[in-house]
């Protein structure tokens, strides 16, 4: 016992000492409300000062940039084209790759430590709500609107407005995207869709499902017709990534909302709309009866894989999975794409995911980093990366209108038509708030419980309880 006492006393003493000395850097950057005012561009100690008024690609020649990237085809595509960037600007770029599963954990730590180790990074649409309130992400409006920083032919209006809108946020929980500062530039996006094997649906006499009920019925029929195949593959792991490519779409179409403002405070609303809860019950039947037997195991790699390997007949996930894998698959002409099934007769409310690039507000090379960001989202780059690389779906209208892109995706049945059908309804349907990760993870855990037999209302009630607790 003497040991315990000794150690506890030592601990307490040291804790007080440490507290008194205000340790390392617990308080992240000040000014959470950094309006879209002047970005502290003066901070960038460039080798040569930016020439006033005129845009110059070579303004930061000789500089080196460090980028944090997800191990992802977008990053690979960009890396392949880095020599062009070097030629254009004279800037050297070093990349660090992190496996996608742990990427945001690493990014979070980088930010929390106010590190300037990386100048720019990949980020996702929803992460803006986590990272911007604390001032980790540099607001980009000042750079965008400054003609000396952004080339004249950048054509920001060519970028789909709904994508840019979703990269803007005011920083206040509950307020929709679109207000406030711009925090990232879209690199590529994907929508939520249903992809299927045309020939198998034909063979089994199944029409392309238009809503959730038809999806369920189709699945049952497919199960009988092809007992060795999985009728529908979906994501199921315990994490935020399970919700956005499928669940959020149909949930929204039934009128479901994730959060509601009640007396000025955000409250979890997953369990509040009876239609949405009933839909969740139906989804429960779907994942129990027609989805992969090891539901909770599937990440999006597994979803893609099961389809490509000919094990599943349909999957409800991102359209770009089709794009990445169709040509290399054994049945490139057998892929079909359709809008995300939701409420019968409802709108195809496709939830979207955007991979984007952002600037580290602690970076000391912001202007140079901006050059890289501008280059890798420029019209030429986007077109080239989409047609010759893997950066899809391209965020620019000009790319979608181009002949090269149209030729590229023509063989993919339904790709263009579906996009046209869902374009007006494609957006981020989540309610922006800083607890995004936690809320969606709890939601995915609730779905796992539903899969195991719990009723939808019960599981969603429990999830909401935990989410509300966490919001305090």
């Amino acid at each position, binding site marked *: 016992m003497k*040991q*315990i006492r000794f150690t506890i006393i030592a*601990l307490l003493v*040291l*804790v007080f000492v*440490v*507290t008194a000395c205000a*340790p*390392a850097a*617990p*308080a*992240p*950057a*000040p*000014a*959470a409300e950094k309006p879209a005012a002047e970005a502290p561009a003066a901070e960038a100690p460039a080798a040569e000062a930016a020439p006033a008024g005129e845009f110059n690609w070579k303004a930061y020649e000789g500089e080196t940039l460090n980028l944090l990237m997800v191990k992802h085809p977008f990053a690979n595509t960009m890396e392949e084209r880095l020599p062009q960037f070097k030629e254009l600007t004279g800037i050297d770029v070093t990349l660090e790759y992190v496996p996608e599963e742990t990427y*945001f*954990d690493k990014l*979070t*730590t980088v*930010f*929390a430590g106010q590190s300037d180790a990386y100048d720019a990074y990949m980020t996702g649409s929803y992460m803006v709500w*986590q*990272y911007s*309130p*604390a*001032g980790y992400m540099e607001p980009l409006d000042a750079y965008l609107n400054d003609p000396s920083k952004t080339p004249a032919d950048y054509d920001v209006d060519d970028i789909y407005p709904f994508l840019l809108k979703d990269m803007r946020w005011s920083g206040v929980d509950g307020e929709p995207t679109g207000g406030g500062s711009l925090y990232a530039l879209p690199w590529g996006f994907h929508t939520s869709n249903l992809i299927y094997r045309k020939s198998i649906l034909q063979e089994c006499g199944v029409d392309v499902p238009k809503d959730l009920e038809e999806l369920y019925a189709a699945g049952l029929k497919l199960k009988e017709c092809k007992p060795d195949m999985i009728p529908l593959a979906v994501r*199921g*792991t*315990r*994490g*935020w990534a399970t919700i956005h490519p499928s669940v959020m779409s149909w949930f929204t179409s039934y009128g479901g909302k994730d959060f509601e403002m009640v007396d000025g405070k955000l409250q979890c609303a997953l369990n509040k709309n009876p239609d949405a809860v009933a839909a969740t019950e139906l989804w429960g039947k779907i994942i129990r009866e027609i989805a*992969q*037997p*090891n*539901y*909770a*195991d599937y990440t999006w790699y*597994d979803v893609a*894989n*099961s389809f490509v*390997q000919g*094990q599943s007949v349909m999957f409800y996930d991102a359209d770009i999975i089709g794009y990445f894998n169709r040509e290399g698959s054994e049945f490139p002409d057998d892929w079909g794409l359709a809008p995300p099934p939701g409420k019968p007769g409802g709108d195809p409310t496709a939830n979207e995911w955007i991979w984007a690039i952002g600037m580290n507000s602690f970076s000391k090379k912001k202007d140079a980093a901006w050059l890289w960001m501008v280059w890798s989202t420029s019209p030429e780059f986007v077109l080239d990366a989409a047609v010759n690389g893997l950066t899809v779906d391209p965020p620019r209208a000009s790319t979608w209108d181009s002949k090269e892109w149209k030729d590229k995706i023509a063989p993919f049945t339904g790709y263009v038509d579906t996009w046209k059908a869902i374009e007006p309804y494609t957006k981020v349907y989540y309610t922006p708030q*800083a*607890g995004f*990760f*936690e809320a969606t*993870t709890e939601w*995915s*855990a*609730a779905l*796992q*419980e539903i*899969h*195991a037999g719990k009723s939808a209302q019960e599981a969603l009630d429990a999830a909401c309880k*935990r989410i509300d*607790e*966490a919001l305090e």
Partner: protein
Amino acid sequence: MSTSNLANPASELELAPLNPVSAKEKWTPFIILGPALITVGVVMIPFLISVYYSMTNYRLTRPDIDFVWFRNYARILSSSTFWNSVRVTFTYAFLAVSIETMLGIFIAFLLNTETLMAKIFKPFLLMPLMIAPLISTLIWRLMMSPGFGVLNYFLSFFGQRNFPWATSPDTAMFTVLLVEVWTFTPFIALLVLAGLKALPREPFEAALVDGSSKWFTLRNITFPLLTPYIAIAVIFRLIDSLRQFDIVFGMTKGGPGDTLMNFQVYGYTSTFMYMKPAEGLTYIIINWIIIYVISQYMVKYLNKIQSRIS
């Protein structure tokens, strides 16, 4: 070597101390120890900082940070998530250590028989441990996939091709324990085997002369002599299984639902994914305290055993 320990148990175990005679000699132990202590001790200062964080409302998404004393601890101790973690952690640790110990001892005895197979397999005993648990969990998951997993293939002969493994709350614990036992039983087996090889001859010779039965020898001589080795192995495994992260996280990240949310997994999730270090670190510190207390008792027990031997 020396037989003095049998004749003089007490003195041996007082570890023949060197009584410091001069001031210089008094400091010698600390001088020798010093660098080691400092090197590691300094790394522990962050530990104290973490303790500090656990007493704040630190969120990675808010710039302000307030000291809230023990509010986090109080809140957590009354939340169902916490008690679920307690249940999961202790179930896991208890089952893991029991199974590994029994299996490990059994394997050690088998390897000790020096039969042909024993000689062949002994060098490969530690292999499961040589792969990072995170990766070996991944390999197991590949083997357990209904789509192409070889284990499911074997099970399909029993009609169980779609055995849920870690995707069902009923079988998830079994699945992670399977990987845990696979990875760490060799550790115990090795320590016990070392013990078996190091046992003194005299008691056994005496027993043979006395004509004792094999069982008698086993129960009353072998096992008591082995106990210190077993105890050390158990201590290490207990400590490690109470703070197991890699296997559980790698398998399901704590799911399905909350079935496998032990302390470490929840601590990691809360700190990095939910960006709430205040909460996450509190969990991990509570975990640390639990391990601390349990180890205290185990080490005392170990010392008691060692003094009872011979």
